[in-house]
């Protein structure tokens, strides 16, 4: 309510006299134990500046949290900060003038020189003005393999997609499902994206996702991808689960050989006490290309019309990108920091591979940064339909894929 905001602002002004103590409500969807530990690093840092972090966590990812955030903004009672994924989700809010312009913070802190890869800051830039602060990097481009499963099948752990396919029959003989995949559409579309980058290569992938080139989508590079995707469909039969972590659990136990999933899967391995290198292996870019896509989260700050809160918002933005906070937050979350001049405290073999690729600049923007949510939803639907309809041919799905890309904005 406007009245409450005014009252809040009034109290803020009064207490501002006492060393800038402002309350900022921050909304996000980091609700599980590990994620909560990460968020508390932000909160601690903010509280340490004499202000107060009011936490507003809503689980369920964007689909649940977004209508809530939008309603708060529409209803005139916006939170002081909220989390979205990197990319195009907040486009409309920025266009409608509902988000605070923090270009001055970006220039003062020199983000353009610090944020790596620069595509992260680019996604936060609309018409040359900066509207959000990227805080971490999560990458989809990983394949996780169970060392135990391959040992049981008597074959060496694959080091790329080609080897994975060729060792699959041995796994089948040992009664192990080669590829673990859950039933939800985003998982299948995600796996497709990883395979597309790995098998079609960076240029073709960018042509399709960035430039929306439907001809390349119909072309031979992508035909290869779809063939492989069709083969992957075969390799995943035998495991019936819905959630991504149930598929990961199959890999942890050794009843499945591998899973294509983002780096957040490491959390599952960690909780089960598996050790990278010993119990499980990881292949960034499916071992075919040394590339990571850089998705992740960013914080946006709604316009509140209150100068006190605005100043606090800008302070928070700068804080989130500061070196110490980047270290503590990302170490707790298991993601990669957006600035290269920090050293994470706990790094296992797989996270180190990720850091090396980042340092070498071998990155592409995430699919969700380049494609609109509407297009992503359509692709989710298409990929999951293909995945569960054996009669759907590779040619058909490629045609429909290129149609969607042609229509994409």
């Amino acid at each position, binding site marked *: 309510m406007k009245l409450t905001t005014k009252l809040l602002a009034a109290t803020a002004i009064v207490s501002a006299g006492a060393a800038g103590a402002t309350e900022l409500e921050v909304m996000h969807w980091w609700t599980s134990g590990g994620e909560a530990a990460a968020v508390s690093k932000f909160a601690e840092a903010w509280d340490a500046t004499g202000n107060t972090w009011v936490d507003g966590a809503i689980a369920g990812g964007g689909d649940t949290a977004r209508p809530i955030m939008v309603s708060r903004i529409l209803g005139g009672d916006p939170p002081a900060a909220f989390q979205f994924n990197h990319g195009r989700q907040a486009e409309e809010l920025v266009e*409608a003038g509902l988000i605070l312009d923090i270009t001055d913070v970006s220039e003062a802190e020199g983000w353009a020189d610090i944020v790596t890869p620069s595509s992260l800051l680019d996604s936060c830039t609309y018409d040359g003005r900066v509207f959000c602060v990227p805080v971490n990097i999560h990458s989809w481009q990983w394949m996780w393999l169970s060392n135990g499963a391959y040992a049981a099948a008597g074959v060496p752990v694959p080091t790329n997609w080609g080897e994975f396919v060729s060792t699959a029959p041995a796994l089948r003989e040992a009664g192990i499902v080669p590829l673990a995949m859950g039933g939800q559409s985003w998982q299948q579309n995600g796996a497709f994206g990883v395979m597309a980058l790995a098998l079609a290569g960076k240029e073709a992938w960018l042509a399709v996702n960035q430039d929306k080139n439907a001809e390349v989508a119909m072309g031979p590079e992508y035909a290869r991808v779809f063939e492989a995707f069709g083969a992957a469909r075969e390799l995943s039969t035998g495991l*019936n689960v819905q959630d991504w972590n149930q598929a990961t659990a199959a890999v942890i136990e050794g009843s499945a050989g591998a899973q294509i999933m983002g780096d957040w899967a490491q959390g599952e391995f960690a909780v089960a006490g598996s050790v990278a290198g010993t119990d499980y292996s990881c292949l960034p870019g499916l071992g075919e290309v040394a590339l990571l896509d850089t998705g992740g989260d960013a914080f946006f700050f709604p316009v509140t019309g209150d100068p006190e809160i605005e100043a606090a918002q800008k302070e928070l933005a700068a804080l989130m990108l500061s070196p110490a906070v980047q270290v503590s937050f990302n170490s707790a979350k298991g993601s990669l920091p957006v600035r290269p001049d920090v050293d994470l405290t706990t790094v296992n073999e797989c996270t180190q591979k990720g850091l090396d690729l980042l340092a070498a600049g071998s990155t592409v923007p995430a699919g969700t940064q380049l494609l609109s949510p509407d297009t992503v939803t359509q692709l989710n639907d298409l990929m999951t339909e293909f995945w569960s309809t054996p009669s759907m041919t590779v040619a058909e799905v490629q045609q429909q894929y290129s149609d969607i890309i042609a229509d994409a904005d």
Partner: protein
Amino acid sequence: MALAEEASRKTTRPDAAPIRRPNRWLKNMTGKVAMLPMILTALVIFLGGTIWTIVYSFTDSGLLPRLRWNGLAQYERLWSSRKWLVSIENLALYGVLSVILTLFIAFTLAALLDRKIRFEDAFRTIFLYPFALSFIVTGLVWQWILNPEFGIQGIVRGMGWETFNFDPLYNPNIVMYGLLIAGLWQGTGLIMCIMLAGLRGIDDDIWKAARVDGIGTVKTYVVVIIPMMRPVFVTSLVLIGAGIVKLYDLVVAQTSGGPGISSEVPAKYVMNTMFGGQNLGQGFAASTMMMVMVFIILIPWAYLEFGGKKRG
């Protein structure tokens, strides 16, 4: 009654000004005032909200509602979407089966519970508790129970019947039946309660009369009691129908619309497009079509219900 009073007043005051007919607006004032909340809600929220939705379905609203017209584009896209067509088919199948089975199961259970049995409270609570539990987790539990590896199929196979097949959730052809099992589990309890309340309102004399006439128990139910419970059946039908149209949480929790898109339903299409795809215009078009379809089914019923004389 008012007219009679008017008439008597007229005879006793012959030189009074001519009496006007009582103002129709003032008649039954208490009733009208009492219904004011309903009238306001109906007009402002439901009628207003519906019109708002229909209007914005002709725009290209994305994350926020905006008035940028694009004619029938949303509807064209809607009807050329395989996912939407599958949703409607699924809902029709689920809807018909759900109505028939819910009414049958609920009435049977209510009739059984009505017979002064012991432990009525316990049974009634067991049948009703599914209604109380949030669907996110109960949907997950049904997912586990119907899972071929560690659910019922696994257990029965473990007991020796190697070829037993009970895998509805991973078979695109019968996945809607898997959903139906959980849906009935969740929804029949409440309908049973409504029917029980209705049964309890039936006079004992009716039962005695039927017994004296020598009509058997089952026949009494079918031929005498059910016709007397027509309003209760209508209420139940509306409740079941509303639940079917709004079917969403169950699908998300159990199958996420899978395998593939074989268990998609219209409400999920609306939700995913509005909030996941951030395409309000498309979502509004879909929900408008849902409303049209509901109308097509409801209009004949409304005519039957309100067209003829009801009371007496």
